[in-house]
């Protein structure tokens, strides 16, 4: 597990990115930081819920295919915790099938994006969910 924090200037709003691919982490972090967000990252499913509770972000970007438990499991745990039951969560997945989207939404995801995504769509989704 590796956790890093980058500071941006968007009213101190904080995004936690839970993703295991280092080059995707670096690109999204840079993109959001340039857009003024404070960005923290967490690279696997173990301790992901604790990371959310400790950091208290305004938005979580959560990859579905994580080593260990899936992003769906993490999402479910976050929705059961009172502190995070209404936290905006943007799910990322390489699977675009309707059933994955339906599962994400039924478990309480705020938005669902399929990889590969455009940077413009990512920024638009983050801005809409966290502001």
């Amino acid at each position: 597990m590796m956790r890093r924090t980058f500071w941006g200037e968007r009213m101190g709003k904080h995004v936690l990115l839970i993703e295991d691919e280092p080059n995707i982490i670096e690109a999204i972090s840079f993109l959001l930081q340039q857009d003024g967000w404070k960005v923290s990252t967490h690279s696997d499913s173990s301790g992901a819920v604790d990371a959310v509770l400790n950091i208290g972000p305004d938005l979580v970007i959560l990859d579905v295919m994580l080593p260990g438990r899936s992003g769906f499991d993490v999402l479910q745990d976050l929705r059961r915790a009172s502190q995070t039951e209404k936290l905006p969560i943007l799910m990322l997945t390489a699977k675009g099938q309707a059933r994955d989207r339906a599962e994400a939404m039924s478990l309480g995801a705020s938005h669902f994006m399929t990889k590969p995504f455009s940077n413009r769509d990512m920024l638009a989704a983050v801005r809409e969910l966290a502001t």
Partner: protein
Amino acid sequence: MARTLVGSRIRERREARGLRQAELARMAGISPSYLNLIEHNRRGIAGRVLIALAGALDSDVAELREGADRDLQSALRSAATDDSAGAELDRLDELIGRFPGWARLIGAQQRRLDRLEHGLEALSDQLAHDPFLAESLHEMLSSVTAIHATAGILVQAGAMEPLQQRRFQANIHEESSRLSDLSRAMVNHFDQLSEGGHAAATPLDEVEAFLSRHGFHFPDLETADADAVAELVAQADDLQSQSGRHLAAEVLAQYHRDARQMPLADFVPAARDCDFVTGLLARRFGVPVDSIFRRLAFLPSTEGLPEFGLIACDGTGAVTLRKPLPGFALPRYGAACALWPLYQALNQPHVAVAALLETPDERQFSAEALATYGVPGATGAPVAIRSTMLFRPARRDADAALVAGKRAVGLSCRICPRVECEARREPSIHN
């Protein structure tokens, strides 16, 4: 139905020989009007008249009675499974008799359709469950995502620290190398599929390829000590993964234990003596009946010994061992037909379950299965269960007792034409 078959065949053969009804009637010693009724399917025919007509037409009685076109009939019936087309099944024999060329064409098209559907199922199965493809596609999408996002930043972002710019360039280079490796690996994988029909995509595939190469029989294990298992596994090029070697070692170790309990020199004569009835053999050797299943399935391919198929699964239904037979294919991935005794046995451990199975192409196989619990590691510890099913082409007399319980089964739901089956868990491509 049989009457129609016989009449149409008699007329077809008479016309093929250029005989008039009167000539054939005279040769068979019957009146032309009676022959006319027979040929137009208005009179039944059997006994001496049939023998006389067969002789006059230089045909076998059996050929006239059952037809040389049994496979053709089967294919035409299969083609008529789509009820919406309104095919007149009750006039099938008339079709064959009056329009043999069209009937053969429809039959050939149906067989081709069947082959294509099976091919489609195999490919669908492969694509849906092949762990290599699933992992490769995930890796590929991750790389593409990283490149897409990074390239977008490099193109759209304004001023950037040179160090950060170089890092992004390095990331793109790294991901493109990863994509290159992945694409090569996928090409190799598809090459293997096209060359060998199927690549050994799972450890179970490796084990099946290994067992098949040895004809599912290992003379070395019949007499040698248990060390021979490790040697066989170590020398097997087919067993490339650690899981495959582990699985093969378990299968061979069990083979060795079975061979010790039932030496081949004793088992083969006993099997013949018991007419290959598993229960009798189990009593004779004092072993559980699933030991007999394995021993029969792993007999040498010697003339006079029937060929048996075998499939085993664990408590989740996951297949752990398979030996297919012609006409009774076993799924490479996913679950098989829920109606197989293999799964029924899991619900009643230590009780043998037998059934006569009829496949969608009307082949019959007798099958028996037994599920047994393993030995718990400690008091209260979970106990594993395993089911084993032995099957062979049905024998008309020996399996007569099973006829009442004949069961219409398939291979897997996806290609099974039994669309109304209560055990169906997904739509069939026949829908």
